[in-house]
């Protein structure tokens, strides 16, 4: 785990002095001699190694073996031996399986995106005058603790566009292209003669042209939004053969009033689209005026009874933005927060690697007529490959044990959808479950998953030293 914080050795690592304590190619030679190359007796070497061994033993070996042993016992301590029972239950637990799946997603997406962005930023900032300032800004999130970053992104992803910047942007862009309707949330009173139909409402009864004025009462509009509206009125004059009526807010402030009747104090709803429907076809359309009245003219209406429809466009609710922390998006959103934090780390290391790329190779390629993309693709990236791999593997190790961001950002209702192994470990051991047997089993599982990446990194370091 220490590999994550230690700056990975790049190709600039100092070449090791030949024949240090670690015997490799010279193994046979060292074996024959009683003393090492620096001339120390084995017991002296052991003396010097002892403090390190004690510390390593106490802080690394002992906890790991204790965890491994603990994972073979039940919830109540070392009294109840369950063998591999904890491991079986771990793999049958849907929560752990979700965690494994999410971990896989994390490992695939987060390091590659962070490294990719880091590479782009590093290459681009190398050429820019204010490159250092830019790098500083990108690197800054690294100075923030995971916990604080989690709290920041909890706010960024807030559902309310007034609080969460992510939804503020999404809603802002959306509303630029699609305007909200005049009366979002308006609805007919239950049993008020209007039935829902395709997002809008349609009268249950039919109306014959030239008969009584139609009443289309709606409710559910905050009175404050209608402060300038007029008193609703019954149409004063209706041409022969036409269908007339009123659309109004059928709610007297302070209560009272008769449902379905225009009472004093009830406001008109202006600008509502009203359609006449016969046999599924819209035969006439009108818009309510300032006193709420509308006239569907006789000309297009034809004869025979019609139903009146208030289409959905009148009531389209305001766009609520994206549910960033809902079950489907929550893991992706948290990965976004992680990338925000760690791109700076990748960028700085890659920029350091970039500084070591010989300029003359790039110049030579340009002289040979390669364009910038070809230089980047064929010269820079291959030369940077060792650095890129180190950054990637370091991030993989880091991501495998991701905990804080998920724990802080995911709300309770979707915590299980965002679950990762380290979080499940915590929840099983301390967060209510209080089964440290299962928790230890998860810890061992996590260790096993991290090991290949650690070995890979160690092998790389060694290879570089032998070069």
């Amino acid at each position, binding site marked *: 785990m220490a590999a994550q914080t230690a700056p990975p050795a790049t190709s600039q690592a100092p070449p090791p002095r030949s024949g240090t304590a670690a015997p490799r190619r010279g193994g046979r030679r060292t074996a024959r001699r009683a003393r090492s190359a620096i001339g120390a007796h084995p017991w002296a070497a052991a003396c010097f190694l002892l403090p390190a061994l004690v510390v390593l033993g106490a802080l690394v070996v002992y906890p790991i073996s204790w965890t491994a042993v603990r994972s073979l016992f039940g919830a109540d301590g070392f009294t109840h031996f369950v063998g591999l029972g904890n491991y079986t239950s771990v793999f049958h637990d849907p929560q752990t399986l979700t965690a494994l799946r999410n971990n896989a997603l994390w490992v695939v997406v987060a390091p590659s995106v962070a490294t990719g962005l880091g590479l782009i930023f590093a290459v681009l900032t190398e050429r820019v005058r204010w490159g250092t300032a830019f790098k500083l800004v990108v690197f800054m999130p690294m100075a923030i603790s995971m916990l604080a970053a989690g709290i920041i992104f909890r706010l960024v992803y807030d*559902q309310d566009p007034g609080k969460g910047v992510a939804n503020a942007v999404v809603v802002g862009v959306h509303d630029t292209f699609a305007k909200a309707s005049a009366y979002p949330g308006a609805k007919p009173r239950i049993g008020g003669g209007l039935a829902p139909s395709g997002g809008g409402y349609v009268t249950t009864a039919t109306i014959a042209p030239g008969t009584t004025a139609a009443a289309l009462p709606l*409710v*559910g509009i905050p009175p404050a*939004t209608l402060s300038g509206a007029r008193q609703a009125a019954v149409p004063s004059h209706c041409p022969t053969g036409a269908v007339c009526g009123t659309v109004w807010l059928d709610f007297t402030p302070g209560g009272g009033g008769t449902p379905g009747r225009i009472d004093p104090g009830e406001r008109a709803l202006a600008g509502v689209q009203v359609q006449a429907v016969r046999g599924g076809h819209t035969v006439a359309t009108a818009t309510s005026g300032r006193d709420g009245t509308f006239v569907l003219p006789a000309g297009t209406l034809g004869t025979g009874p019609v139903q009146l429809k208030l289409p959905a466009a009148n009531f389209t609710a305001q766009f*609520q933005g994206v*549910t960033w922390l809902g079950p489907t998006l929550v893991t992706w959103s948290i990965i976004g927060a992680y990338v925000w934090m760690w791109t700076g780390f990748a960028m700085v290391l890659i920029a350091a690697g970039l500084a070591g790329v010989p300029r003359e190779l790039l110049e030579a390629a340009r002289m040979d007529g390669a364009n910038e993309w070809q230089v980047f693709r064929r010269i820079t990236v291959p030369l940077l490959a060792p650095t890129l791999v180190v950054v990637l593997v370091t991030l993989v190790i880091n991501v495998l044990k991701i905990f804080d961001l998920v724990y802080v950002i995911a*709300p309770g*209702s979707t915590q*299980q959808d965002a679950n990762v192994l380290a979080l499940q470990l915590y929840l099983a051991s301390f967060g*209510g479950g209080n089964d440290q047997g299962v928790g230890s089993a998860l810890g061992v599982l996590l260790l096993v998953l991290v090991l290949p990446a650690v070995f890979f990194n160690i092998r790389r370091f060694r290879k570089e030293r032998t070069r």
Partner: protein
Amino acid sequence: MKRTVALAATTCALTLLTTACGGSGANSSSPSGATASNLNLPDLHGQHLEVAAVWTGPEQQNFMKVIKRFDQLTGAQTDFVPTGDNVSTFLGTKIQGGAAPDVAFLPQPGVLAQFAKSGWLKPVNAAVEKQLQGNYSTGWQKLGAYNGTQYGVYFKAADKSTVWYNTKAFSTAGVSTPPTTWSEFLKDAQTISDSGTPPVSVGGADGWTLTDWFENIYLSQAGPAKYDQLTKHQIKWTDPSVGKALTTLGQLFGKPSLLAGGTRGALATEFPASVDQTFADPAKAAMVYEADFVATNITSDTKAKIGTDAKVFPFPAVDGGQAPMVVGGDVAVALKNSKGAQALLTYLASTDAARTEVEQGGFISPNKSLDLSAYPDETERSLAKSLTAAGDNFRFDMSDQAPAAFGGTKGQGEWKDLQDFLANPSDVAGAQRKLEADAAAAFANAG
């Protein structure tokens, strides 16, 4: 209900409510000589006592007045030790380290049982018993007992059956009297929705608010006997009574037009925001259900005045049952066999101590001998009145008595299952199955 949130909130809110009435209370209103002699408190000059509780800030300062009065009466010197949020861990470490405080306040009956089982608690003596019998109803006495032995004194109560409403939204909608039954509640909610204000604010992002909703409906609908059985998991969550309660809750949760922000909004709203949006201007909701500590949030986060802009009505009765009375509270127990500890418990069980604390506001006492006029304002008085009026028909918060994995963990157990139910209220049977599976696992683990 999650204890730490509730406690922290209660402390601040109550203090804020009652700053005006603090001050001189203890000295002016209680004839100390008479009370002290009635209590027969021993002379404790030169003795040091420690009392541990979760309270901080103004709550702690208010309680310090009670301690001060105890010190005056007995001559003891009592120190307050704040426990931090995790009371049982804090006290467990202290006790095992041999440095237990004399008296501690425990937030849940489960912790009392656990401590009593470990032999950490000392039974109360005759003097405490006498105060308890005189001042407490049997129900409150029993809550402080384990296996028939009396260990604790419930000093503080929380009323978790209160619906807080925005008076302006109610009057705009023409709802003049708050509902007393569930059907009236739904009818009024519909009227308020028609008036243009979303009627009910639900803090569904915090699972514990949903457990409190369920508990109130279940207690009123299924009755106290079933409530007790379900609390102990003697009946399963797949029991028809649970299905009936969830269906009833679904009459509200299943209508997005009755919830502030719809279903999605309710699931994304945390408890503090659920209070804030109800008393914001313009109001985004007309009422919000939670315990008496809502007052704290109203006072500290909104401009609304309790008693004029914000009022409270008891949780409505469901299906002809009695109106529910779900409570929380803090119980004082003795961790040491000292004369001082018993004397402090005796004093805490007395009306004098209850009055001293209550007068400063933000505090409700289960002491039935306390005259309601001691409460500093009308809202608190009404809360205290409904608490004492419930007699022994109140029940302690169910989720607080369940193993933490079921009733007290974010994203797990009952919290999560009820959030899933809020997201999909038509699937009552599925919710019951999940609740039962989680409850069975948690109760089995807890042994």
